[in-house]
């Protein structure tokens, strides 16, 4: 005999509970958490490195870096003077994203009382990290002009979920056939009204408005 048993539960309920716990902890300790996502090779690490250089020391910043393997990104970010915790997801089965419990553990390695802004550099992937809340205050997606213009419509969940998009490597535009207007049109189609920052982490062009946006968000939380 077969019996149907009602369950009615979110499959990711465990992660969502842990994310809420993180969120409460970060609120109590006065830390703004930014979840940065992108495809591999969009220039996320360089963008963060340059962003942190502009924020420090006024905005005390720390970073959690997720990668499937290696500490290369952490090494590059440590140059900024910000405390960096590297998480290699291969220890958790080569995961393609950072889950809330991983952030909880990584945050234990930081002195959060001395941190205003915690940046989480998620694993390079436009699909999976969208499904995992980590307890962040804002999410941004980095894409670059060396990728296809249609990334936003190929990965609408990610672009819907984010609070801002950074379009990186604009210094390369003269050398590419990239249709920037088309890419921006796609972002607007998927997420109307989302701020889009066009910048080059390499040359520093366009970094100012992005850093100002982030700083304003951090200050709004810390002064709340």
């Amino acid at each position, binding site marked *: *005999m*077969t*019996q*149907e*048993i*009602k*369950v*009615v*539960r*979110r*499959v*990711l*309920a*465990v992660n969502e509970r842990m994310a809420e716990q993180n969120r409460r902890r970060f609120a109590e300790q006065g830390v703004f958490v930014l979840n940065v996502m992108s495809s591999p090779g969009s220039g996320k690490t360089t963008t963060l490195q340059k962003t942190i250089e502009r924020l420090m020391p006024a905005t005390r910043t720390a970073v959690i870096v997720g990668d499937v393997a290696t500490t290369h990104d952490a090494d590059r970010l440590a140059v900024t003077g910000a405390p960096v915790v590297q998480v290699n997801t291969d220890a958790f*089965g080569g*995961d*393609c*994203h950072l*889950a809330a419990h991983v952030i909880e553990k990584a945050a234990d390695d930081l002195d959060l009382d001395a941190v205003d802004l915690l940046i989480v550099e998620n694993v390079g*992937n436009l*699909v*999976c990290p*969208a*499904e*995992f809340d980590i307890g962040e205050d804002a999410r941004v997606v980095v894409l670059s002009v060396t990728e296809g213009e249609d990334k*936003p*419509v190929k990965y*609408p*969940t*990610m672009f*819907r979920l984010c609070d801002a998009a950074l379009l990186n490597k604009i210094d390369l535009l003269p050398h590419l056939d990239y249709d920037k207007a088309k890419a921006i049109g796609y972002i*607007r*189609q*998927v*997420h*109307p*009204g989302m701020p889009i920052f066009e910048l080059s982490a390499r040359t520093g062009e366009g970094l100012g408005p992005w850093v100002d946006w982030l700083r304003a968000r951090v200050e709004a939380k810390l002064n709340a």
Partner: protein
Amino acid sequence: MHEMGIAQQIIDIAAASIPAEMTGARVERVNLKIGRLSAVVPESLRFCFGIVSQDTPLAGAELAIEETPILARCKDCDTRWTIDEPVFTCTSCGGGRLEILSGRELDIVSIEVAEREP
């Protein structure tokens, strides 16, 4: 790509939902609701589930997946519609302030459990 972890969560939740008195029960089917805006590919989920469920009470169970559409509501003119293409602007007023009513589900609705033959 993260379907393996999702499959494991499904097994954990389903196994914990089998009533204690049904000793040796086998789950025949798991009824899931997965929104079109969730980052889960049903085919990969089925593949991963088949691997992870081995040697559990869910071995051989069928994943019955109901894919739920993306339903939106315009915050400006209150129009409601189903989003089929990745275009998130109001079909009526063209506004972009939307509330997503459904489409992000990733829920276990129920499990169908067979008792062991006496």
